[in-house]
Each structure stands twice: as C-alpha cells, then as structure tokens.
C-alpha cells in the first residue's frame, strides 16, 4: 500500500510541480490542467500503441502539454481574456482534441510494452522487480524537480518568478511580461502533461475522464506542502509540493482503508484543504483563493 501511495504521490507530484508554477509563481488559476493531464495520457497511449518507445511518448506528451499552455497563454495575453476564463476555454476545447487524438474515450495499453512493464523490467530479479516501477517514477519525478529547480535559478527563471511576483518589474526590465507568462504556462502544462503520460503508462490505459479534478488534486498538494513546511526556509518549494502530493495521496488511501466512501471523498478533501489553509493563514500574502 505504501508502494501504491508513493507511486501515485510521485506521479501526481509532477503535476504539483506544474501547478506550483501557475498557482504559486505566476499566480494564475490555470484550469487548462484538467485537460492537459489527459492530453499527455492520450498522446502517450496512442503513440505507445503505434510502437513508439514509451519513454519517447512521455516527451511527446510534454510537447503537447506545452502547446496547450501556449494556447491558454495566447488567449490570455493576446486576446486579453481573463486568466480563469482562458484556462476554461482551452480546457473545454482540449476535451474534444483529446477524444480526437485518442480516437475513443478509453484506450487500454495492457497488450503492449509500457514504460514500467517491458522485457527489461521482466528480466529484473524479484527483489527489485517489485520496486522497479517506483524507482523509475522516482527517477522521472526527481529529474523533473531538479530541472525545474535549476531553471528557477537561471535568468529566465528569475524573470518567470518576477512575472508572478511583480509584473511591472518585468516591463521596466524591457521584457514583455506577456511572453514570460506564456512561457510559464507552457512549462507548467508540459509538466502536467508529463504527469498524465506517466500516469497512463503506470495504469496502462487512457480514459477521457481521467482529468476530472486534476486541478484540485494538484492544488491541494501544493497547498498542503507549502503550508506544512513553510517555516522550513531551507526547503525548496518544489520539494514541498512533492511531499504535499504524497501526503495528499496518503490521506486518500487512509480514507479508503478506513472504509470511507468515495461519495464523501470530495467533502473530506475540502475539509482537509480548509484546515491546512486556516492552519497556515498567518503570513500568506500571495495565495488567493481562486480555486
């Protein structure tokens, strides 16, 4: 069970990294994620069936996600549509796009080699085979996290953080804040789509409805993580988001084990959400309750 929590928590942790960018850094309530998550999954599933190496499908999923972010950013920046609405527009459009890409509402990939089940993993000795999926997920998640950490320390990363922090600074630095926002949305949605693609490889099917509630899960992870550990200044916010995601999944698992019904799950999530927000109220300035 711990294994399941860690696997799921780390996969959704990639999603949390994406939301960290939009919600925490850019302060942009991006609803695109509810569709870019299944977008990554759809691309990965379809390409896997076409015979592309699964690892490569993750990359293609990311590219698709980045394009989704580009569309949202374009609608917001160039067409001057409000942030929330731009996300909703892209999310709605992507639903159809996802169905077109996948061809049908549910695409199983049980029959083919996947990232986590292939001739290589089957050849592994037993003691490691149980953990191979987790190790691989951990590896992908850590690479994503480290790259994001590195990026946030670059000049471009500084500009991205500035765009969310105080957009007028970006302008006075003679940079177009609109472009910076668009790039941020692209990176964020690329990460979200990567999470979707990894999820698809792990659960071995794509389903059109798998994106429902993605935004809430990611947001809950980010908020749990950043609020619980906010006084630990040495800890990076990306680390907080990952731990937040694992804790969130642990809570859901616990609720399931205790026999709580999924009917009540949303209510429990909401209460948990509220508790953590209230507990961490003290010094929050930036976090607005958009979600």
């Amino acid at each position, binding site marked *: 069970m*711990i294994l399941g929590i860690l696997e*799921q928590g780390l996969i959704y942790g990639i999603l949390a990294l994406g939301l960290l960018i939009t919600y925490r850094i850019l302060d942009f309530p991006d609803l695109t994620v509810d569709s870019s998550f299944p977008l990554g999954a759809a691309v990965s599933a379809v390409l896997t069936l076409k015979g592309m190496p699964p690892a490569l499908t993750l990359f293609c999923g990311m590219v698709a996600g980045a394009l989704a972010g580009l569309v949202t950013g374009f609608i917001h920046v160039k067409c001057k549509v409000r942030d929330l609405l731009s996300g909703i527009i892209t999310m709605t459009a992507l639903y159809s796009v996802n169905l077109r890409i996948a061809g049908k509402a549910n695409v199983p990939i049980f029959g083919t080699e996947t990232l986590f089940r292939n001739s290589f993993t089957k050849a592994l000795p037993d003691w490691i085979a149980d953990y191979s999926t987790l190790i691989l997920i951990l590896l992908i998640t850590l690479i994503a996290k480290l790259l994001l950490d590195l990026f946030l320390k670059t000049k471009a990363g500084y500009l991205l953080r500035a765009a969310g922090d105080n957009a007028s600074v970006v302008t006075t630095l003679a940079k177009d804040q609109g472009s910076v926002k668009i790039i941020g949305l692209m990176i964020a949605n690329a990460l979200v789509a990567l999470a979707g693609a990894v999820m698809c490889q792990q659960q071995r099917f794509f389903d059109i409805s798998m994106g429902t509630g993605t935004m809430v899960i990611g947001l809950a992870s980010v908020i749990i993580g950043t609020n*619980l550990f906010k*006084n630990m200044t040495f800890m990076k916010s990306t680390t907080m988001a990952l731990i937040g995601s694992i804790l969130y999944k642990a809570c859901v698992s616990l609720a399931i*084990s205790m026999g709580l*019904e999924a*009917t009540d799950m949303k209510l429990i999530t909401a209460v948990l959400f509220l508790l953590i927000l209230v507990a961490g109220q003290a010094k929050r300035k930036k976090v607005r309750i958009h979600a």
Partner: protein
Amino acid sequence: MKKLTAMILSLMMLLALASPALADDMINIGIIQFAEHGSLDNCREGFIEGLAEEGFIEGQNVTFNLQNAQTDMAIASQIASVLVPKSDMICAIATPAAQAAFNYAQDEEVPVIYTAITDPVGAALANADGTNPGQITGTSDLLAVEAQLKMIRALMPDAKKIGILYVTSETNNTLPLNMYNELAPVYGFEIVAKGISAGADIPLALDSLLPQVDCLSNLTDNTVVSYLAMVLEMAGEAGKPVFGSEIEQVKLGCVAAEGLEYLELGRQTGRMAAKVLKGEAKASEIPFELITNSYLYVNKTAMAQFGIELPADLADRANDVTPQ
C-alpha cells in the same frame, strides 16, 4: 508546534497505512464499483447472491470490502492500489474499475472478476481470440442489439429509420453502435446516430434528429439515460416512440426494451467467481461470458400512446412493467 502536530499526524497516517490487513480465515473480496448507478448496484447485489448460492456467504466465510469510485479515475486507481494487496479476489464493476484493478492485480496474481463491461476486448481485458490476458475474467453486458432490432421490427412494421442519441465520450457506446449499424439493414432499418458531448446538448440534438426518424432506440449511455425524462417528453411531442435498453427505462416510459437483467448478470458473475475460489478453474482459464438471453419489457401506457400493438408471438414472453 502546529507544524510538529501536523508532521506527527502525517507520520501516524503513514504508519496506519503500513499496518497489514488483519489475517484470518475469511476470504477477502474487494469490490470496486466505478459509479453509483442502478444497473451497477444490481450487478453487485447479483454477484454477492451468486457467490452465496455456491456457499460463499458474507460474514461466514467471505468478507466483502466495497469501494465506489464515484466516477473518479484517480480514486479508482487508488482504490485498486489499496484493495488489491489485501484481497484474495477483486470484483470490478464497469470498465475503468476493471482496468485499474487489473493493472495492480496482474503482477500479484490476484484474480479479477469483472462485470458490466460492454466490450472486454476493446478494453484490453480480454484478447481478441476470447482468451484472457491474465488472471482475469468476467461477464459482459453487451446489449442484445439483434433482439432489439427484431422487436422494433415486430412492433413497428413500417418503420424505416431508427435514431440513436449517444455521448461520444462514453466508451461503452462504440461497440453496440457498430452492431446497430451492421445489423440494421438485415431488418430493413437505417440508423441515424447523433453524437453529443454533454447532456445539455440533448434538446438541440433531438430537435434535429426527431424529424428524420421513425423512432428512437437507447444505448446504455449513462448521460442519455440520465436525461431520459426530457428525451421521452420531446419524442412524445413529436409522436415518435422511444425504445429502451433495460427495464428501468421502460418503467420510466419507453415503449419496450430487449434488456439485460443486471441482477442475473451479477449472479452469473458470482458463480464464475465461486469456480475460481473453489479452485475448479483459474480465472485465466475461464473465457468471459456474455448474457445471451434478453428479456422483453413493455410499457402498455406508452404503447397505447403511440398506437402500438403487441404481436401475439411476443405477448407471451413480454414482461409488463407499466407503472400502476
């Protein structure tokens, strides 16, 4: 301090999760149901009854751990990750539940018995040749399309076109729709299918569909079924009868249906599960089963409304479910 409490709490949570399920002589069966839904509930009840018929009685030698994912994919997957390791068998109701269960059960060799899956082959839960891809088998609720077409022909001898309204995102619609298109010419029908993306599109879709057709026939499409009252009202105003796909729809006002008995489907599934539990066969060795005999349900009030007569040869096997 608060932070510390929070950390201790989360630690305790993890520990609680780590403790293994209580070991006893009971057979633990995890039931993963994808959605709360009349037919699916019937499947579950039938499954439990079917097992009981074979001597696996709840509380005596079997414990059921029932989890409903409420149509949430992420939760379905997580339920599977929690239930599979502590169950001796998984019963999965509806396609995404079965896929999630099989994903976690495949390596653990925990048998998965599914039910209410329209197209096990399309969902990759069965191979195209009818064999199983692992310790998994079950029952399909594929519609009795041929029986339905035959029945419509008998009730409406002059009808030419049948309208079908369906949501494009529901994977269970694909196979029956193909069957309708394939079999309709045999009975002299033409199918006019109208895909929609959400329930809210139904009024507009019906406005354009109804004038083109002589009657409507429903799939087991969850969305369309949820909006059935509206569909019936609009079709009624246009003077076009609606044929259902299961008993509940006929009760609500559809003229007739060649439907499956989900309770029966569940029982059949339960008996398959019993075979596996008794060790008579491995799940991988039992091919998935279809329910072949459908039941004819009729609604006399609705028939009278459209001036439809029940032919004598159908009358003796028809179940009148007209609400009193």
